[in-house]
């Protein structure tokens, strides 16, 4: 069985500007893949290519093993999409949109859509253009799930939503996952909202895929390490003791050294404890948001000794 989503050296350019370059990743069936990246990192361009809505400059985007550009229509039969900007015709009500989809999809569960909209408390007879931002997102999610897709693609679905709408949306996705094991590919800024759902994470940095890993493994190798080193003369510099941890971000504080490392393991940590002069060593797990900041943000190393 082919992966629902596969990108092979995907590159998107707009004139001289490169939105994403040579991105390669795969999402196996049942996985929840969260693609993270700062604004302008190329997430939306990548999603449009994945959905066959835009042609890649080079490389390929595959949906269910087929070229997304060429086999878009068939792939959309098995895919639900929640776009970054709700794009349904503004003059149509949620019910009319559901009726339209019923004519387009071979299997469409109007009752399930109506129930979902009712659960979201979205008025069925109000034109889409007059709904709130949150309600629009909920309608788009209801429409995306109406044909029980094998793959759900969400492009920053919580953008601009309030806390309540965000939670409702996440709960719906969790419910969908629990019911059918739908594969999910999402891009988001909202790391906290999807941290509990995602099984794999990718981080786009300046158009390149800086990281692509299972979330658990990611969490296991990223740590925040804090310690003091009494042998360091001025306490404003550090030596080579962090080298084997692949420190991504090191800050020298008044009290000591604060580092984010991407290659943590217990044995190395024990060796660090044993380094002469190193004291008060502690390592703490990092939330996804901090990992993202460490990977996607500026690399920062202060006070490295020559």
């Amino acid at each position, binding site marked *: 069985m082919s992966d629902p989503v596969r990108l092979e050296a995907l590159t998107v350019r707009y004139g001289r500007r490169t939105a994403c370059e040579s991105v390669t990743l795969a999402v196996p069936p049942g996985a929840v893949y969260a693609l993270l990246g700062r604004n302008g990192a190329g997430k939306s361009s990548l999603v*449009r290519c994945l959905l066959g*809505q835009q042609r890649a400059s080079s490389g390929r985007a595959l949906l269910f093993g087929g070229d997304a550009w060429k086999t878009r229509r068939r792939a*959309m*039969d098995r895919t639900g999409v929640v776009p970054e900007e709700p794009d349904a015709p503004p003059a149509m009500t949620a019910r009319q949109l559901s009726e*339209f989809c019923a*004519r*387009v999809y071979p299997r469409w569960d109007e009752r399930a859509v109506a129930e979902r909209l009712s659960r979201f408390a979205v008025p069925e007879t109000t034109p889409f253009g007059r709904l709130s931002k949150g309600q629009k997102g909920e309608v788009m999610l209801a429409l995306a799930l109406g044909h029980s897709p094998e793959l759900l693609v969400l492009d920053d679905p919580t953008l601009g939503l309030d806390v309540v709408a965000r939670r409702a949306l996440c709960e719906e996705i969790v419910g969908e996952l629990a019911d059918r094991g739908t594969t999910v590919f999402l891009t988001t800024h909202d790391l906290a909202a999807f941290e509990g759902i995602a099984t794999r994470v990718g981080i786009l940095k300046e158009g390149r895929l800086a990281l692509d890993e299972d979330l658990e493994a990611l969490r296991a190798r990223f740590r925040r390490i804090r310690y003091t080193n009494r042998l360091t003369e001025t306490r404003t510099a550090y030596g080579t003791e962090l080298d084997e941890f692949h420190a991504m971000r090191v800050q020298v504080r008044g009290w000591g050294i604060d580092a984010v490392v991407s290659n943590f393991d217990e044995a190395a940590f024990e060796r660090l404890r044993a380094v002469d002069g190193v004291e008060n060593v502690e390592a703490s797990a990092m939330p996804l948001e901090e990992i993202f900041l460490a990977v996607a943000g500026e690399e920062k190393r202060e006070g490295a000794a020559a």
Partner: protein
Amino acid sequence: MSGFFAVFRREVRIRRLVFVAAALAALIPFIVTLARGVHGDVAADERASIAFIVAIAFAFGMAVGLGASMAASAIANRQIAFDFARPLSSLDIAVGRAAAAWVLALGSAAIVMLPTLVVGGRLPSADFVTDPRLERTWPLVVCGAVFLIFAASHALGVATRSRSPLLALDAVLCGGAGLAIAGVLGRLPAFLAATPRWNVEAGLAIAVVVALAASGYASVARGRTDIRASHHVLSSSFWGIIGVSVAAAASYAAWVRGARPADLRDFGTMPAPRGSWVALQGKARGATATFLFDTATGRAARPITIDWRGPTISLDGRRAAWVRASERGGPFDVFTLALDATDPKPAATKVSLPSYPDLFVLSPDGGRLASFVDGVLSIDDLGSGRTLASARVVGDRGLVRGFFLDPDRLRVYVQPEPSGRTGVLEISELDARTKTLTRLGSRELPAGGVHLTADRAGERLVAVEWPTRRAVLLDGRTGAEIATLGKGDVGASRWPRFLADGRVALSESSDAAAVIRVFDRGGRPEREVPLHSRRIVLGGELAPGRLIAASGDEGPERWRTFVVDVDGGTVRPVGDGLVPTALLGASYAPNAFPEAGSEATRLFLREGRELVSLDPGTGRLRVVLRGRASKP
């Protein structure tokens, strides 16, 4: 198809208020006529006209608006992604939207017209559709126009919304295509190639429609949610199709203009008075074509001229001249061809004429040109371009004919336009040395005017009067009558020819019989040669005293040709289906018939598509030029 209908239905449903607006607009004709206080048939006519205008405005306005917004703006703001995120084909999305726009525009126009139609009972377009070809088809034309406007508006919408530098390239290509099309059409002027020009215009119009439709579809199908990509695809496909079409049109135009004498069908001939050149006029590759063709060598040149103004060939057969036709109107340049050159090429002279001339003859040596344009008679030197003499001719000048007596003196015969009343034939001479126009004489004319044939020196004229068919021999200078050559039997055809020795031959033929009468220089009867045929015309002299005569009594396709020995009185058949080319020799000037024994006297047109030459010794025919069979 379900996807197409879903999109189509959705788009119509979203914009259904347009039909309400159309229903309100349908009241406009009634409100206007009520306000103006007109009643009865006048009110019905007025309502019909207003309803038609409002309906067309509605349809075209909707086409513009929907073309710019329905897909172009949806691509630009990526709302079309909603459709591309569904299992809908690009065809469903693009054609569903286009069909909805088409139905909305035409449906609203129909709603506007409906009440007026129901009340008035007649099609409101009657006052506007004046072209008989559109009487029944105008609704189809409107439907097509709505689609065309929609497609053009979509293309403009995509191009402008993309804000791409490609727009500048579009503008350049648009200008380039316009110039290229103008260039192609310029090579096919209406006076020369009306049918090919129409073919090109129709072909390019179809190409534009196809290009707009195809590129519009491609902009949606290949551009999808990327407006710049959409514009790129639209431009490349549109200009690709237009480019190929313009190239095809240019090739077609070049093919039409590249016709050779062998491509002629249904052609006529005017042989040179001397030498082996002949002017051919007919249809070649769909266009009117004129060629100067050397029957001896097969060399040819193609003058670009209108068929009634050239080319003319000098009496010595060494130079041809014609007025180069132009669609832009005058002044018209005069071109010449040196027929005695090794490699003759058309050459522009410094002479140009303000409009097409009524008289256009060369001096015997071809060095000077006489023309009559807008009432002014002129003699121009073709070498220097100088006007040597000119004079205004006053009075009624319906038909001006003339010829050079020598390089300095031009004899002209001016008769009024046949009007059913008698008139006067004025005879004058323009002298290039004294630069004066001298009136020499005049003669009363019958109501139908006269057809003039002169001897080479211009001393004598044979005038065949219309409608009496009376033939008289006149003094060429004064118009004084010398002798009556034939009269009576108004149904008879009389055809004169001056023979090489100065005698006059006159064919007389009717449905009953035919005879060739020979007169001496003074017009006294010498001999009669009866012919067992009807409707005889005279060709050239194959040799002094041996005259070609042809009979078309069974229709032009069954011509029978004879050699008549006017002295011996014998008649020898040459063949059937042969038309002597020398028949038309006098069209250049009244004295410009082919010289006895010249090549022109031996040339015949066979079946309207072959030029053949008769060997007088053996009586054999040689094909000089094989044209194409005429189209049924």
